[in-house]
């Protein structure tokens, strides 16, 4: 176990270096003169040179990367060219909102997805099974932004039950969370169903029934515990899907999170903010995956890194 955890941690190091290097390199890969692009087409030569100097673009690449990492460790990710505020401050303002939305979506996805998966597996090949699997198929095929707009159309425009945009109240969280969680719910439902069906065929299930346990207890205590182990891993991956889906969901619902920030920054060519926001999102994903992998090795002692 300790060996596995150690290997897993060691493997995270090159990933962290690689991710930071890509983020570092992206500004340097802009076609043409990056300093000119960042300063804007109308910028004077002095401004362009000032940008070049402030970004350290006049230094050798290796020096630039080491500086980038050093600044990063100090929490210095540069200054937004749009708001002129430190990038770290922009991120600190926005990131909690994205986490709030992502966690709410994860809750929706888990409750709806695992619930639908259980219903489908315990009624295999009957209408509740067919219906939930059809819905799940629709869920993975549907564009998340379109679902969001259709929910706004139905629940805000037509019925007037829920507010269409903004953040603050619990009512404003409902539509974005459902929108973002829908695709993950669909995937979790399929996983739970197939995992549960697999377990239900095992002999210890027959034993559990033979010794007279009630069906809900058989499913809840014996089957689910085993079927949900792979679902945990999928939930980790789904966290990434949710973080990336947040970019779209936040755009639809004018949710002031980090996803919206990335899009606004790309459109405004505000590179320090793009770098900081993408880096933070990727690091969050790497961290969650690490936790999930370690959790998985605790839940299922058979798993070992080869």
């Amino acid at each position: 176990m300790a060996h596995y955890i150690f290997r897993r941690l060691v493997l995270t190091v090159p990933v962290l270096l690689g991710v930071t290097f890509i983020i570092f390199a992206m500004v340097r890969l802009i076609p043409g003169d990056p300093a000119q692009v960042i300063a804007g087409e109308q910028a004077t030569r002095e401004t362009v040179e000032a940008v070049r100097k402030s970004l350290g673009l006049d230094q050798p690449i290796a020096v630039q990367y080491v500086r980038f990492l050093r600044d990063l460790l100090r929490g210095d990710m540069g200054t937004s060219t749009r708001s002129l505020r430190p990038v770290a401050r922009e991120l600190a303002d926005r990131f909690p909102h994205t986490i709030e939305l992502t966690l709410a979506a994860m809750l929706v996805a888990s409750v709806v997805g695992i619930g639908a998966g259980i219903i489908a597996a315990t009624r295999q090949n009957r209408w509740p099974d067919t219906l939930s699997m059809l819905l799940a198929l629709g869920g993975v095929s549907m564009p998340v932004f379109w679902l969001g707009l259709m929910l706004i159309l139905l629940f805000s425009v037509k019925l007037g039950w829920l507010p269409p945009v903004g953040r603050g109240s619990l009512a404003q969280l409902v539509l974005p969370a459902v929108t973002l969680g829908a695709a993950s719910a669909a995937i979790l439902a399929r996983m739970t169903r197939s995992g549960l069906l697999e377990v239900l065929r095992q002999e210890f299930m027959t034993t559990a029934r033979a010794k007279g346990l009630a069906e809900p207890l058989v499913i809840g205590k014996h089957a689910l515990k085993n079927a949900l182990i792979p679902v945990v891993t999928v939930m980790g991956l789904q966290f990434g899907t949710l973080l990336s889906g947040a970019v779209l969901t936040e755009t639809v619902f004018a949710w002031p999170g980090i996803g919206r920030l990335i899009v606004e920054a790309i459109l405004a060519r505000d590179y320090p903010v793009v770098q900081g926001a993408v880096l933070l999102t990727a690091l969050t994903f790497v961290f969650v995956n690490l936790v999930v992998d370690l959790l998985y090795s605790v839940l299922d002692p058979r798993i070992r890194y080869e």
Partner: protein
Amino acid sequence: MSRAEGPWGETLGRLRHQPGALAGLVIVTGFVLVALLAPLLTPEDPFKSHFARSLEAPSREAVLGRDELGRDILSRIVHGARISLSIGVVAVGIGVMAGVPLGAISGYFGGRVDLLVQRVVDIMLAFPGILLALVTVSVLGVGLYTAMIAIGLVSIPAYARLVRGSVLSLKEREFVAAARAIGHGDAAILGQHILPNCLAPVLVQSTLQIGSAVLSAAALGFLGLGAQPPTPEWGTMLSKGRDFLRVAPHLTAFPGVAIMLVVLGFNLLGDGLRDALDPRLKA
């Protein structure tokens, strides 16, 4: 079984017995035909404005209604199929051409090469979903072509992983040992004996990947980072329609239905192909 049928004929035979896969095949075929024949099928020029008739609701004359410039939405969706199909094909092409060799070399030679390729794949996979595509777009600039490249780039790791896995198990098989025994070199073994056996999983992956490429392209278009107006790209159309959601929801609803239908088609076909090509994997 006749020799002419072969493994592909057998696969098609199995596919026939799955209603889902068949529905997928019908949708995908329809989509490809619409994309190829678009100019013949459209009732109107998809770029022609009729300002006096902007936002008109669906009617017998414009079945899916008109957009904010009075353009026929059906004609634009039909033309949009061309864009979606090209994005899907180009993106998958990039993914296959870069990912398959990477995975093959990584799995076949192992050792340091494998370690290096797998770390690169790990790093790419550390950017969830369309995030890497967003990074690419922000470097190369906004537009349809950069969107294609960006989405293709994102699909490389999946192919690399998939092919590496297949090669790892195939290279231990007897027919590979036999090929080596009769004096074939690494290139011949990999190219003639191992890779042809990876075709089935790559085909399944590509089918599913086209669907997800269509979805990603629409997402980039919706964010204003993909195809730009007046290109009749589905995500871009949807994004424009958002401003008129209250007064003319048909601007938003129909492009979304088109995206969903096409993605659903590729998902159904991909799942069906997986089951048909490898009955053991059937859940």
